[in-house]
């Protein structure tokens, strides 16, 4: 088992190095650079001297290999550098925006799981009943709806409905306050985006719960328990649910790591100052250091989650655990 763990953990590093290299190269292949964006998007003219001094200031006039080595060396020391756009440390830029993305992601998970597990279980228990059909339709629709469209439509519905009821259209506040400073305002900002992302998340988890429960319910030991005359509810709570939960938790965990993708579009729709929007911005601005750091953040989260899942499964598989 230990050998497996060590091997598995060691494999993380080439992946991280590969991702770091990929983003480094990809960003530099894009025509132009941050200085052009900065000086040129105003439409006014600028001299070559201004451009050159900008390049020198930021350091992108150095040869690629030098930039690459200093970047990798920085990563090794957990020094993520300075954002080329604003001159502030990358860590500060990310830290200011991380809380809101995290909050939306956590809220989405809470909503999704709170709905998915009960509904998925019921759906499995009453397979092919009208409840099952309803739940399945609801979840397949969730997988089919584009998240941004849902976001747009939901903002509009809220505006229209509040205007129809009270005459004054209501929209969530657009300036963010942290949860501890003003919980009601904070929740009103986060609620709609969380539901928008949460819907899809819920759909996936619901389907997973349903199929995992179905599988477990067919197991022999459940049939035995039934034959023995145990009450259904007891069977479910004590045996079925526990065993079904493992793949469900796995899916929830992995999906959470990939939630970042959904955040990008949702933050655009709801004007949230989060990590997703920062990602789009940093690539548009061609801010190499910031993009590189963001990519490494996302990749690390993804890689670590898959690592944890793999280790969990390995531990559960006696062939590996006892090796």
């Amino acid at each position: 088992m230990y050998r497996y763990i060590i091997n598995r953990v060691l494999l993380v590093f080439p992946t991280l190095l590969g991702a770091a290299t990929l983003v480094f190269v990809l960003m530099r292949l894009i025509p132009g650079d941050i200085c052009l964006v900065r000086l040129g998007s105003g439409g006014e003219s600028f001299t070559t001297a201004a451009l050159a001094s900008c390049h020198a200031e930021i350091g992108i006039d150095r040869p690629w290999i030098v930039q690459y080595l200093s970047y990798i060396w920085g990563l090794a020391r957990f020094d993520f550098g300075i954002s080329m756009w604003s001159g502030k440390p990358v860590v500060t830029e990310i830290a200011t925006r991380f809380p809101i993305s995290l909050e939306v992601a956590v809220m989405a998970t809470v909503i999704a799981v709170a709905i998915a597990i009960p509904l998925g279980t019921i759906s499995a228990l009453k397979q092919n009943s009208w409840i099952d059909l309803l739940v399945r339709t609801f979840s397949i629709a969730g997988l089919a709806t584009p998240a941004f469209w849902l976001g747009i439509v939901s903002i509009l519905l809220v505006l229209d409905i509040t205007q129809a009821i009270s005459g004054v259209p209501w929209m969530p506040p657009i300036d963010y306050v942290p949860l501890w400073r003003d919980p009601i305002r904070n929740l009103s900002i986060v609620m709609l985006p969380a539901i928008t992302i949460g819907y899809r998340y819920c759909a996936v988890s619901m389907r997973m719960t349903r199929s995992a429960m179905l599988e477990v319910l067919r197991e022999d030991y459940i049939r035995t328990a039934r034959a023995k005359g145990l009450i259904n509810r007891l069977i479910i709570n004590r045996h079925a649910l526990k065993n079904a939960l493992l793949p469900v938790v796995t899916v929830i965990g992995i999906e959470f790591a990939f939630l970042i993708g959904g955040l990008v579009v949702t933050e655009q729709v709801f004007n949230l100052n989060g990590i997703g929007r920062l990602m789009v911005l940093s690539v548009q601005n061609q801010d190499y250091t910031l993009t590189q750091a963001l990519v490494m953040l996302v990749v690390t989260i993804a890689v670590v989650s898959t690592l944890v899942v793999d280790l969990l499964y390995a531990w559960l598989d006696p062939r590996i655990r006892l090796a």
Partner: protein
Amino acid sequence: MAVLEPTPTGLAALADEGSLAPRGVFGVSLAFLRRQPVGALGIFLVLLFGLAGVFANWIAPYNPTANDFAAMTEAPSWAHWLGTDQLGRDLLSRILFGARTAFVVGMTSAFVGGVSGLVLGVGSAYFGGYVDLWLQRLLDIVMSFPLIIMALAVVSIFGTGVQNVIIAITIPLIPRCSRVVRSSALAIREVPYVDAARALGYGHMRIILRHMVPNVMGPFLVIITAFVGQAILTEAALSYLGLGVQEPVPAWGLMLQGGAEEYATTAPWIAIFPGLAIMLTVFGINLFGDSLRDVLDPKLRDR
């Protein structure tokens, strides 16, 4: 953006079941329709939009790219069944031609991504060792790389347009397919007859094509079906961010981009109909995919 539900146990279990018994395509289809009414609905939706896309030239009442400044943002009427957008273009025609774009993008991405994933997954599983190790690392990198940055970079380097959108969508699909195929293929690889075949001197290709590939067909088909829906959704999201297909090519995601939000209260049909089109198509694909999986996975079949 989105991840399929992996159902590792379900799909891996598929591998044990062996290939589908040969019954002829027609026989299989008919049996499928009878037993899976929900899947039939799915197929119906998919065919509806698919054929609309194929025959758009003949069915569409107007040229989808013709600006008509005399008829800007008109509500649905007999002249324009679904209304017009802000440039006076007929929405129905744009949705019909948009179906073509959606399916071209969706199916190309799914096919290319799926087949690449199949090749890499089976190859990785079969050859094992260092091939497997490094191939999987490469695919891990691609899979964990944020899609949005990849797409932004591809578009910034190569420009927008249908081909580049397809590239941007296909890339993340490959490792996902490969992962699933690989885990199914690994199960087969352990089976003794592969070793026996090698001992008998059969070539790699023959073993792979004859034994491994047919046995991963089940999960492969399910995943590739799901990919089509995913690709359509991803294209919509990329177009919304301005990274997808460009004007004046009709595409559902593009139709939801600038105009939709701007005209949402004064001309809501501009936003509603393309969104519905996407929803119904992907809904149909998912229904079909679900039924396909139910058919291929005997454990989940109804008793």
